[in-house]
């Protein structure tokens, strides 16, 4: 079984998913990431999914769980690079990725993790800033 490589840049762990993600590889990645957060004391996890052609309920759950676990381990997860067709499909599928921060690209994701920008947190009933 292949494993998705995890790179370390300062106190951020960077994962770039380049394959059509098989379920067991997604689960292994989830475990590897938790372990690496503990081993390195990383404060942020950046998951680049720009090469992913679909996000289904399984990968969605992997992302949500990773975000939740990293939060408990005092690290923040940002998902970057979701393709528009994937985003549209995700919404229709009914996946909310609640509690997961997203950004358009790696640079913006890193900026969020560096605390320079505030990202969008997908959370129900928390988006009424627009109707002022």
């Amino acid at each position, binding site marked *: 079984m292949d494993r998705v490589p995890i790179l370390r840049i300062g106190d951020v762990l960077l994962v770039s998913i380049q394959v059509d993600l098989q379920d067991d590889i997604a689960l292994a990645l989830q475990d590897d990431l938790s372990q690496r957060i503990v081993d390195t004391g990383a404060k942020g996890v950046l998951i680049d999914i720009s090469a992913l052609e*679909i996000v289904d309920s399984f990968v969605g759950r992997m992302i949500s769980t990773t975000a939740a676990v990293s939060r408990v381990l005092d690290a923040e997860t940002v998902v970057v690079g979701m393709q528009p067709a994937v985003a549209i499909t995700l919404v229709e599928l009914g996946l909310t990725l609640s509690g997961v921060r997203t950004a358009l690209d790696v640079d913006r994701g890193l900026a969020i993790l560096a605390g320079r920008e505030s990202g969008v947190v997908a959370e129900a009933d928390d988006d009424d800033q627009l109707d002022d």
Partner: protein
Amino acid sequence: MTSSTTEPTTYAVAADADVVRVRQAVRDLAVQAKFSLVDQTKLVTATSELARNTLVYGGGGEALVALLDKAGRPGIEIWFRDEGPGIPDLDLALTDGWTSGGGMGLGLSGAKRLVDEFEVDTAPDRGTRVRIVKWRR
């Protein structure tokens, strides 16, 4: 009137790697049939959900993929079938968020939203068959 323009191709669904293989086959056919990128993505995502259900709950089975033609309009039809335990309460299983395992309970209900035709035939002594079709817009 609908007529199959290709003989269905059968794919085994017996391991995680098979789910990936079925997804890729459906993607290739959707590209060939000139589906929009969004429609390709919706169909492949629905395929992924249903193939995984076949594997996880049905104990494995197969997927049959065929290209359809309705008065010049291409469509893709996929059958998923297994001889597993069947789904005791289909209405419940089709409810968003309902899972008998540790899933998100979005596979069946979500897949239904992503395609144009969706039929389930399931019984404890027959296993489960799901048929989906998506037409090119």
